[in-house]
């Protein structure tokens, strides 16, 4: 077995040599997670806004439910989705199991509660009178929503980045409903799991480096946006 040092060196060479298989796995991961994120964002923003600005019956229940979803392990989401999407399951006719859409649904379910919770918090930073003020100025509902969203854009960007970080680094659900099919549903994390199980560590390490660098960049961005958000609210 190679020492960690040699393996890491080979991994770096693999990354810099532009290995096609490796980079297509990385690109596939990004595509799937970006899609899930973009599909979750509108609904999450609206829900976060509604929870922050409107009081309605069942409000606390929704917040509690959302917080519970935050804590659901991803393998449980994977298992439930697997059973639903299997051709013998209730949604089997959609023929989605072991496909990218199945992984996207899973990641959508994972990032939605984070986005809702964080946008809820972000919108709460705005005075509740803001809504009435913009409305009384004669702005349409959508325009008011947009204005208020602009006010908290940095906090929302931080939320988006954190959600992205969570879903692209997730392995349990992606493995179960994606199936780790080469070139089709093999993502960074499932590839690492596979390569490790084969005893081929180099590709695993290379992909691990990508995830590490990604986490670092994302967190730098979060820090930057948080700083902006704090400055913004100080004004």
């Amino acid at each position, binding site marked *: *077995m190679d020492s960690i040092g040699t393996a890491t060196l080979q991994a770096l060479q693999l990354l810099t040599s532009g290995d096609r298989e490796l980079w297509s796995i990385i690109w596939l991961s990004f595509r799937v997670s970006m*899609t899930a994120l*973009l599909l979750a964002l509108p609904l999450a923003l609206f829900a976060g806004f509604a929870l922050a600005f409107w009081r309605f019956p069942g409000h606390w229940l929704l917040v509690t439910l959302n917080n519970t979803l935050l804590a659901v392990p991803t393998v449980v989401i994977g298992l439930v989705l697997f059973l639903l999407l299997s051709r013998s399951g209730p949604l089997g006719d959609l023929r989605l199991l*072991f496909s990218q859409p199945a992984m996207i649904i899973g990641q959508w379910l994972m990032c939605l509660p984070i986005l809702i919770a964080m946008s809820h918090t972000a919108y709460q930073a705005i005075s509740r009178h803001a809504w009435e003020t913009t409305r009384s100025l004669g702005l349409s509902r*959508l325009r008011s929503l*947009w204005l208020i969203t602009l006010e908290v854009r940095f906090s929302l960007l931080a939320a988006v980045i954190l959600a992205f970080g969570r879903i692209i680094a997730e392995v349990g659900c992606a493995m179960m409903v994606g*199936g780790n099919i080469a070139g089709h549903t093999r993502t960074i994390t499932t590839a690492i799991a596979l390569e*490790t199980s084969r*005893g081929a560590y180099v590709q695993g390490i290379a992909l691990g480096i990508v995830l590490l660098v990604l986490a670092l960049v994302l967190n730098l961005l979060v820090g930057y946006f948080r700083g902006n958000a704090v400055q913004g609210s100080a004004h």
Partner: protein
Amino acid sequence: MVYPIKSLLLALGLAFVSNSILAADPVRVATTTSTYNSGLLDYLLPEFEKETGLRVQVLSVGTGQALRLGQDGDVDLVITHAPEAEEAFVELGHGVDPRGLMYNDYILVGPRPDRLNLYEAEGILDALEKIHRRNAPFISRGDDSGTYNKEKELWERSGLKPNFSRYQAVGQGMGRVLIMSNELQAYTLADRGTWLAMQSRLKMQIVYEGGIDLANPYQVILVNPARHTSLNHQEAKKLRDWLVSPRGQSLINNFTIEGEQLFFGDAE
């Protein structure tokens, strides 16, 4: 203001998804980690795809899960190596038209040097008995794989229960079990294909091999198209026929790792 942006995002999202929906239906094969981890399918299937223009997707799981995926209609074809489970699979009507595809054999691998001198054993049952008696570390797949089925069968025939304290069932694929055995200097039952593919990375050796008791036949079985309407049965059948054809068989026989042949085609 808001609508254009959001619909743009949605359109983007859908564009990402659609390219995977619109493509033609591939053939889905569930197979065991032993055929996949050995690299056999990575070598065979591109040839098939090139010759036919069809696409194949491989799910590499244990035999138990492979058969289950077939039963549920989630795959079109299974390639497995657990004769009893396969017989039940066909008898219950989940699969049709099973064909022998190839065989290799199981081997007992262990630490180097082998303190138990198992090469002197009078058979695989005797070797297992020695491991049992000396309470040597043994790692078992402990999943629903063909290899684990074989191991259980061997323990049963030896009349011993694998309940010694250093027997550990880990519930992982063959590759991982070999890696764990290597780390823990333990014995384990492995299929020769995975062993040959991984041997250069392991400080282990074959401690016992040979004999009819360790034969490891692989079958290819079509999932019953009468049970599931959505199967890609026609193309799965083409793949099956190709695998058992002289062309497929000779490719299988020519697959070697470090000069050693891994599988022996035995389709009739």
